[in-house]
């Protein structure tokens, strides 16, 4: 009696395992449901970023206020401290011959810079890659970099 129950249990578990394996190709590929998605799903609201000191760089975009320029904003903030920022926007061209422009600023608690480059895109060309890199620092000597990039028809 006991052995019959054991055999039944074994057969049942084998059926479940094989059906799970068989079902896999028809469902969404397991790789799609990655760890990255879990992280996104679990931490939706703003997480604590150290002492509230952070630096960020926005995405470069075509300016609406000044047509035919590509524009980007970057920001450094740290309560009660002197902060500084240097931001460089560069337009990718052939290998190392990029066009670039930098802006630096210093301030207390919060400093924001705006960097722009004139457009060079022409109809029929693929979008141009713009890379923005910022160097943020505070008066205690902490330094961080941030970077964004975007392909824009500008």
């Amino acid at each position: 009696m006991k052995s019959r129950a054991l055999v039944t249990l074994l057969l049942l578990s084998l059926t479940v395992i094989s059906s799970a394996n068989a079902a896999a190709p028809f469902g969404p590929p397991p790789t799609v449901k990655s760890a990255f998605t879990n992280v996104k799903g679990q931490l939706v609201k703003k997480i604590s970023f150290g002492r509230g000191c952070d630096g960020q760089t926005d995405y470069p975009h075509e300016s609406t206020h000044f047509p035919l320029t590509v524009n980007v904003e970057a920001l450094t903030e740290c309560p009660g401290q002197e902060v500084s920022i240097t931001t460089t926007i560069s337009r990718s061209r052939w290998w190392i011959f990029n066009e670039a422009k930098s802006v630096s600023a210093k301030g207390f608690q919060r400093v924001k810079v705006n960097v722009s480059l004139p457009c060079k895109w022409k109809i029929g060309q693929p979008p141009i890659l713009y890379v923005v890199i910022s160097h943020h620092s505070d008066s205690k000597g902490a330094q961080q970099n941030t970077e964004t990039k975007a392909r824009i028809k500008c």
Partner: protein
Amino acid sequence: MLQKGWHEFPANFHPEFNFHRGPFWLRALARTPFFERFAYPIAMKKGLCELWPSSSESILDPNFDTTGWVIHTREKNDLERWIEGSLAYFGHGERNRTQQFLFRDRMFRVKKNLILFRGVLPRFSFTSYGGTLRRQRGIHRANGTYKKYKKALRGEHFDFSE
């Protein structure tokens, strides 16, 4: 010939290609010079291509063919921005001396209004996806957060405020 996902995406939205979630052969194709362009239409079919609004005011062009794209209506949250390297928090003492020496970002003042970072110098990537990965890793290495970045990609929990 324009490949879907390779050249076409709407203004005020930026694409993100999650090849790391795809099969190995697709990642290999995406990192093969020239042939990389054929990986993008396949990635679209597999749902690995996302469009993120550049700002809260971004509106998707109604004429844009959205098939194959995963379109987000909100901007990236802080964690997602931190992972891609556009947001960083100040941390002290995260790097050891060797890391500080190797990955400190050096700035070169070329002209009065031009400062070049080591980060914008060419990094010898032959593909677009390879370049993106290299830049993300470079930023996190420079910031001393590379281990946390790898943890985030694996989906492990960690405390930013530590």
